[in-house]
């Protein structure tokens, strides 16, 4: 459950990160590929080397989607409906991988926010990303 304070904090943080969406997203993806090599199997069609334009574009897409969801967390199912369909019927990424990206996304946030990545922010973000992943997987079966 997210309190109002947590929802505001999440919204504020993602709003602030929107200008560096590509960098944060690419960083999280790179970390995921390095620590969990199985995740690379979903990207054989892209160049996922560090600083590649594919990686930056893809990272940006993901972070902007997360930021958009954060604008109104109570409407997550509505906001994510198109992405739910995409992931369930086309991409078919095993949802266990969502946890892996959530973790490396938290690491990227911790790296960039440093002290500002307080335990409260950490808890709120972890809960939000879990909720995001759960909604994303809803149409799978």
């Amino acid at each position, binding site marked *: 459950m997210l309190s109002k304070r947590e929802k505001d904090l999440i919204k504020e943080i993602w709003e602030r990160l929107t200008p560096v969406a590509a960098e944060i997203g690419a960083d999280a993806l*790179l970390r995921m590929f390095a620590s969990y090599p199985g995740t690379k199997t979903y990207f054989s069609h892209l160049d996922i080397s560090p600083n590649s334009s594919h990686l930056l574009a893809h990272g940006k897409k993901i972070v902007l989607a997360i930021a958009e969801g954060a604008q109104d967390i109570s409407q997550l199912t509505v906001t994510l409906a198109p992405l739910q369909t995409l992931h369930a019927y086309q991409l078919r990424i095993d949802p266990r991988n969502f946890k892996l990206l959530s973790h*490396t996304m938290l690491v990227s946030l911790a*790296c960039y926010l*440093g002290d500002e990545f307080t335990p409260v922010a950490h808890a709120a973000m972890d809960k939000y990303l879990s909720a995001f992943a759960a909604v994303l997987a809803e149409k799978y079966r």
Partner: protein
Amino acid sequence: MVEWTDAERKAIASLWGKIDVGEIGPQALARLLIVYPWSQRYFKAFGDLSTNAAIMGNPKVAQHGKTVMGGLENAVKNLDNIKQTYAKLSVMHSEKLHVDPDNFRVLAECISLCVAAKFGPSVFTADVQEAWQKFLAVVVSALGRQYH
């Protein structure tokens, strides 16, 4: 037996050299108790854990965090024999403390996040993270090994 590349050994040793267990340990344990509040079930003897402030200011939490983090020193010094090094601790966590081993994995995640926040992306690079997480995963596995 776990295989470590030279780069991984170097990364782990270098990162460990920078870590202050008295700083990161308490932070990581406090985060575990705050972010995953159900983990508080194992710490009823620690006194006041009722608020985040209470947890972060609790001296028993700080002391235990330091102890747990300091325990990683044994693993760093025995990279090729972590399973054996942690056998007794594993038995203790299973038979005496009755800790669900999934908590080790979650605490390891908290440790990584504290390290990331402390050292930033230039030190905690994707490759350093990989080596560090692999190291923690081996420790976590060793701690769960003697459960039956």
